[in-house]
């Protein structure tokens, strides 16, 4: 995974042309999750890091929290 940007605990990652947002979805414990996003969405995130947070909320509102990340 290649780290593109990181802002306030949220990471934008790339691997083999696929883009992901990684964040802590845990409430009272740390639970890292990774959501696959489109290239357009990844470009928006690079333009404005605030988009990473908004994008995660959008996905969560659609019931998508992402895959667990095992360190």
């Amino acid at each position: 995974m290649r780290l593109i940007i990181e802002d306030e605990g949220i990471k934008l990652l790339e691997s083999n042309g696929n883009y992901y947002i990684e964040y802590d979805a845990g409430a009272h414990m740390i639970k890292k999750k990774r959501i696959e996003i489109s290239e357009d969405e990844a470009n928006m995130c690079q333009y404005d890091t605030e988009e990473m947070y908004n994008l995660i909320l959008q996905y969560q509102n659609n019931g998508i929290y992402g895959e667990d990340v095992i360190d």
Partner: protein
Amino acid sequence: MMAGAGALDVTMRVNGSRTASVVTGMIASGAAGRGWKKYYAWNRFRENGLSYEKAEKIKYTDKGKKPAPETYLSEDYIKKHLQSFRDNGAVKVMPNEPRGTIGGKGGTFVMSGDELADIIQYADGDVAKIESILGLEPGDLGNNPIIVTIKDTSSIRIPSGNELGAWPKYWKPGGYTSGGIKEAVIDPVSEGNYTYKHMFE
């Protein structure tokens, strides 16, 4: 350290002159003790004007659009709720030693130190009980969880539900978990601004 400020309030409200030692017994009684906490949390909401209908409306509002707690909770309620975090510290539990920054944009959930002490006392070494109270999956905390203490509580606030770690299925407005545990959020904490230790030495 105070002996379970939240639980003590329950006893004073519901049972008049009972003492903190009774509260300890109440907590130790297991499910019944947790039920009292739920009752207490809901009663406080009602007393502060947060009706069931209003709470449900907030709960089912999309994340990112949920109102700030200051718009539906009184200043007094918020001040009292957050005081135990300021007095007893803000803590998190996790299965492994933390690395780097804890939490992310929007804030990370914390418990107050006295509340966690109550839970640990009740659990009596059984991590599964702690996981159950905190609404975690069995095994989430491992065998000997790490307690992380955050020193700077200046950004402490009541959760709005817009946090990335707020799960619609479980989150409720008012600053309590679905199990009646007092909760708050705090800005992301960088390494060096927290300490940690194992729950069981």
